């Protein structure tokens, strides 16, 4: 088993805002240790939009939760390095880490309806961190809440600050959630499938809103999703995860034009296209491996149409394919143009 070296860290140019090095997350379960994330390295530049794509259980959410410090230890174990402004957040004392959350890095969740406290008014929840950290008065906090609700385009914010989350629709709840995350003006916003629970028109509104806010504030956005369409539209750079590891990382245009990893190719082919031929969609055969029963060699080889003998024994590491384009596959060719 070979880990990626920190020097192999992917991507971007000067002074990354967030530098993740060899992040590993394991869980103790009654059936033994389970690896959820097995050595992932990436960086995030200021103001960048990064998409993390993967199926359920591919470790995309867990990895980000580990960075936020939301994994309970035990049963979880987090190792590696996560450098934010040059400091390793994983070894920070809990107090400082808490200061970082909300202030510098904020996170929004998939199901906004359940991510809001049902017994507090939305105004209270939006202004909660602000009041806590800025030590301001109740009235000041409410003004701030209204301001934030206006920013995320909740209609008639003034009358709605006093409402409870159940009085809002799913899309509105997600807006409230975003307002909560924006309260302190974080530099990084992690969005864990922010639109999965919403219907399509509302999805678009939320993504437009996020892009707008990002432009205004210059914050970096990490978008976790399994929706390739969303990635294609909104993201600068995308990373594909499979079974707890990165399999491909590339600027979004390069990823869609010239996917190198067979898994990525499978994903893209299984997406309905408006310009393509109609008929049955492509499907990747088989299912992802259970976290406890990882196959030897490349984790994808049992499902791969192009596997060779080497894939069964030797785990591929990320290697450069093109400019800023990396893939972990033995058979992927450099700069393929197909």
């Amino acid at each position: 088993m070979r880990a990626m070296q920190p020097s192999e860290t992917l991507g971007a140019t000067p002074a990354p805002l967030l530098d993740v090095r060899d992040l590993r997350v394991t869980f103790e379960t009654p059936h033994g240790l389970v690896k959820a994330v097995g050595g992932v390295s990436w960086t995030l530049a200021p103001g960048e939009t990064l998409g993390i794509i993967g199926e359920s259980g591919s470790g995309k959410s867990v990895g980000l939760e580990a960075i936020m410090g939301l994994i309970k230890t035990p049963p979880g174990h987090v190792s590696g390095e996560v450098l934010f402004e040059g400091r390793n957040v994983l070894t920070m004392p809990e107090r400082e880490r808490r200061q970082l959350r909300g202030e510098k890095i904020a996170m929004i969740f998939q199901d906004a309806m359940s991510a809001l406290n049902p017994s507090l008014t939305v105004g209270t929840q939006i202004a909660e961190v602000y009041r806590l950290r800025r030590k301001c008065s109740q009235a000041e906090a409410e003004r701030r809440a209204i301001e934030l609700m206006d920013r995320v385009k909740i209609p008639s914010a003034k009358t709605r600050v006093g409402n409870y989350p159940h009085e809002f629709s799913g899309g509105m709840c997600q807006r409230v959630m975003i307002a909560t995350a924006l309260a302190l003006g974080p530099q990084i916003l992690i969005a864990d499938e922010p639109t999965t629970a919403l219907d399509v028109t509302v999805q678009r509104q939320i993504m437009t809103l996020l892009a707008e806010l990002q432009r205004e504030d210059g914050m970096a956005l990490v978008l976790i999703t399994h929706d390739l369409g969303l990635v294609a539209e909104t993201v600068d750079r995308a990373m594909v995860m499979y079974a707890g590891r990165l399999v491909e990382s590339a600027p979004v245009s390069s990823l869609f034009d010239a996917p190198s990893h067979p898994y990525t190719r499978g994903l893209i082919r299984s997406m309905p296209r408006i310009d393509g031929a109609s008929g049955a969609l492509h499907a990747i055969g088989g299912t992802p491996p259970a976290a406890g029963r990882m196959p030897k060699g490349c984790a994808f080889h049992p499902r791969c149409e192009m596997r060779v003998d080497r894939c069964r024994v030797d785990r591929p590491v990320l290697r450069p394919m093109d400019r800023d384009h990396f893939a972990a596959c033995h058979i992927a060719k450099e700069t393929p143009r197909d």
Partner: protein
Amino acid sequence: MSAVDATTAPQVEEDHDRAAAITGRAYLSALMRDRVAFVSAVFLGLLLIAAAGADFLAPFDPDKANLRARFVPPLGTARDGGFHLLGTDELGRDLFSRLMHGARVSMSIGLLGAICSGIAGITLGVLAGFYRGLLEDLLMRAVDGMMALPSLLIALFILFVIGPGFGNLILIFTLLHWMVFARMARSLTLTHQQSTYITAARAIGGSDARIILTHLLPNMVSPLIVLFTLEIAVLILSEASLSFLGFGVQAPQSSWGLMIARGREYISSAWWLVVMPGAAIFLTALALNLVAAWARAITDPVQRWRWLTPPRGKNQPIDDDE
């Protein structure tokens, strides 16, 4: 505004039905609409007034014996001309006045006992559920153990050692009843801790204390209120049993349980000495149970708009300015 708002507009309208402001008057009118709960609440209110103001409101001195007015039946008039609504006892003391004074003891033991055991149990239960680990294991085994104890016997034993009395009764009730709250608080904590909003609160940098106090507890209020109300009823009944057995409140202080114990000797000739305090206990426990059901609905943040907003037709939802 922009095109974004056009698609959100229908949603706003739909939301408005539920968004009517909830005021104190809404609680009152919701209570009036639920007749059973209303009658129970009125009964408990009167009982509280009677207990608190017994010194001024009681028609007779509850402890003053009047041998010329012994065993006057309910609604009877004594030979000295005094009218006794609920009759008199073996010493000629007015039963109604004694019930009012007894209510003071019974109600305050019920309330204080429930408050003390509630605070102890909820604190321990929430901590156990929140931090898990050894604390939880020890605490929950203790709870299991205590639940298996025959509480009346233990209470009798302890009271025998430390002596009866008001303060000791509260102490015993706290010791014997905290587990009920602890068990429920722990399980509620476990359920809510799984919810995304607790993770979300953590993700915006909330401390443990803050998460417990502002995010966890408010969501646990509704079931705990119900338990609290029911516990008051249970404690009033326990106090009655203990006083009946002579280990609770001591004369000349009086409580409903003690009154039943004293009246027992005369049950064949003066039934009202047992029936009246018995009825008081029964009605209070019943009223508390009925109010508990109402309180559950009204304190649930997601459900309460159903009860608190007036029925349709009376008050049409106001149109949005959008």
